[in-house]
């Protein structure tokens, strides 16, 4: 501990979180829940851009970085779709509406929705919980529909029960003019009459025109093979954006944990254009 005998006054550090209240919990799949969070005053905790993340914590349990799945165009709350896969997420899944957590952020860069993506035809490719960050972008572009061209959404998961945000996908996205939604699951399943097969191979079957800017998010192996499919289809890496994920503690590029070469995923990412990733040491 610091040995100095200071009495000290208080100033808010970036590592000091805000208190968030859980106002809604939706069970998406057997292991994914979406948490709606506001401040104690009932208002949004902060403003963010699509792709940005926040540190969510339960004191005494842990703190971890999650992408913000709600769109910035939502003026009332933030949402986090969280898969149960560790100590903190196990605990979060047992929590109830009305309980409090801590949140700090937003952190990281965002998808270039107001620059490079503007006016473009967009192709979203998501796998499993990878839909979480892309949902923020999708709802953002749907709310500012005139600023973008055609929208294609390809989403796959292990089974039909593992498709996150299915209700919104079917009832909102699929019904929006100029938006095409393609769903797929890994294996045949009773009660599923849609496409069966992995995302990268379905992607090739769909034969998309190469005039699109692509946003890919999902398990690393899915991203890898989807990128391979895209290259085979004639896309350039400069047309493809993805997000990376590494262990983080501070969220502001100081704790030294999430670096890939000289880049920090928390600060310089999580959004990277695929040609930028090629220039980094392969430690992700």
């Amino acid at each position, binding site marked *: 501990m*610091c040995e100095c*005998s200071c009495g000290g006054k208080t100033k808010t*550090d970036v*590592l000091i979180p805000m208190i968030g209240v859980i106002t809604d919990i939706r069970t998406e799949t057997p292991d994914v829940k979406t948490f709606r969070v506001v401040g104690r005053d009932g208002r949004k905790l902060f403003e963010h851009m699509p792709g940005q993340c926040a540190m969510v914590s339960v*004191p005494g349990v842990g703190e971890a970085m999650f992408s913000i799945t709600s769109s910035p165009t939502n003026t009332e709350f933030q949402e986090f779709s969280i898969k149960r896969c560790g100590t903190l997420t196990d605990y979060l899944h047992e929590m109830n509406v009305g309980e409090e957590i801590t949140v700090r952020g937003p952190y990281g860069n965002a998808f270039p929705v107001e620059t490079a993506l503007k006016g473009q035809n967009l192709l979203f490719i998501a796998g499993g919980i990878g839909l979480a960050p892309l949902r923020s972008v999708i709802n953002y572009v749907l709310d500012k529909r005139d600023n973008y061209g055609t929208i294609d959404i390809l989403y796959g998961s292990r089974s039909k029960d593992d498709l996150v945000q299915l209700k919104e996908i079917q009832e909102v996205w699929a019904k929006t003019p100029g938006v095409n939604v393609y769903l797929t699951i890994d294996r045949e399943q009773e009660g599923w009459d849609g496409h069966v097969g992995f995302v990268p191979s379905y992607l090739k079957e769909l034969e998309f025109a190469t005039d699109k800017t692509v946003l890919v998010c999902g398990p690393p192996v899915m991203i890898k093979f989807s990128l391979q499919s895209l290259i085979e289809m004639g896309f350039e890496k400069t047309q493809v954006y993805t997000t990376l994920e*590494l*262990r983080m503690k501070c969220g502001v590029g100081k704790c030294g944990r999430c670096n890939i070469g000289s880049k920090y995923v928390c600060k310089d990412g999580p959004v990277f254009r695929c040609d930028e990733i090629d220039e980094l040491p392969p430690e992700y």
Partner: protein
Amino acid sequence: MYRIETAGLAELFAAISETQDLFLPLRKADQTNYGLWSEGEPFDLDTLKTVKSAKDCFFPQSEVLYRCKSEDGKLSIDPQKLCDRAFVVFGMRACDVKAVEVLDNVFLSEPVDTFYAARREHGTIVSLACHEPEETCFCANFGIDAAAPGADVETWIIEDSLYWKPLTEKGEALTESLKAVLESTEKETPAEEAEKTVAEEQEAIRKIIEKLPLSHLDLSRFKPEHTMELFDSPLWEELYKPCLACGTCTFVCPTCQCYDIRDFDGGKNGVQRYRCWDSCMYSDFTMMAHGNMRTSQIQRFRQRFMHKLVYYPANYDGLYSCVGCGRCVSKCPASLNIVKVIKKLGGEV
């Protein structure tokens, strides 16, 4: 420039600690480390390298960030108060002084780390020249001059005298507050004579440094544009082998800034969220719920040196995140160190 008898140092320190906390190299349990000095306590200005660096004074090994309580389902957060008491660190060597600049780049860049910034704001550094540089020293490679250690006040101990030269506003203010002690002997030595004595000493120090075995390392290959070439080098394979992954090098290093954030659950007293030094040498450093990006020691070993010599310079105008203090050289139980890495990857051996 002021001169006082070294016999009067305790008096000087007492004068400083009257109004401020004073951190000095203290001899305890056969080791010398920086600690809070209180009158009468023996200090040690002869040991060139304290076991740990002076990093603790600004970035303590462990510090509470905030306390958190949960009562009736309501959370409350009580942030740790920032340092607001002036303090002096006396005796920092040129390498450790430069290391503070390395840490400043990280902690004072946006968003500013206010815990660190408060300590920097309230701390005054009095440096001490290295009169007998050792064989494990290699600061000269990083443009550091052990004969002119910089900081707020520079000092030299030559024979029975301490020469004191303020360099910054903070240094002037400290000097002003100590005038009574500093001037008691100052009048006996004309300024010119003092300057001359120090200049001669500096020349002697620089001559020693010039002859040190590690003073002329070839760093020319360690540039951001060689990132991939260095990363992919097959030499890491033989270099890392003896590494025990103990993390000692990271804890004694004055520039290592990686930290962990953890909770201490005090039951009904609430949770203390604290941060503490961490090490990229440990396997759980990068472990996530869904996997680990650095599963083998070779990757972790490479990360540490790539960070010091390539990644950090890429982010901060070519400044290396090594100051050549040589602590890792003398403390590694497996005789590994950054010098071996520089020589091997730099093409010297």
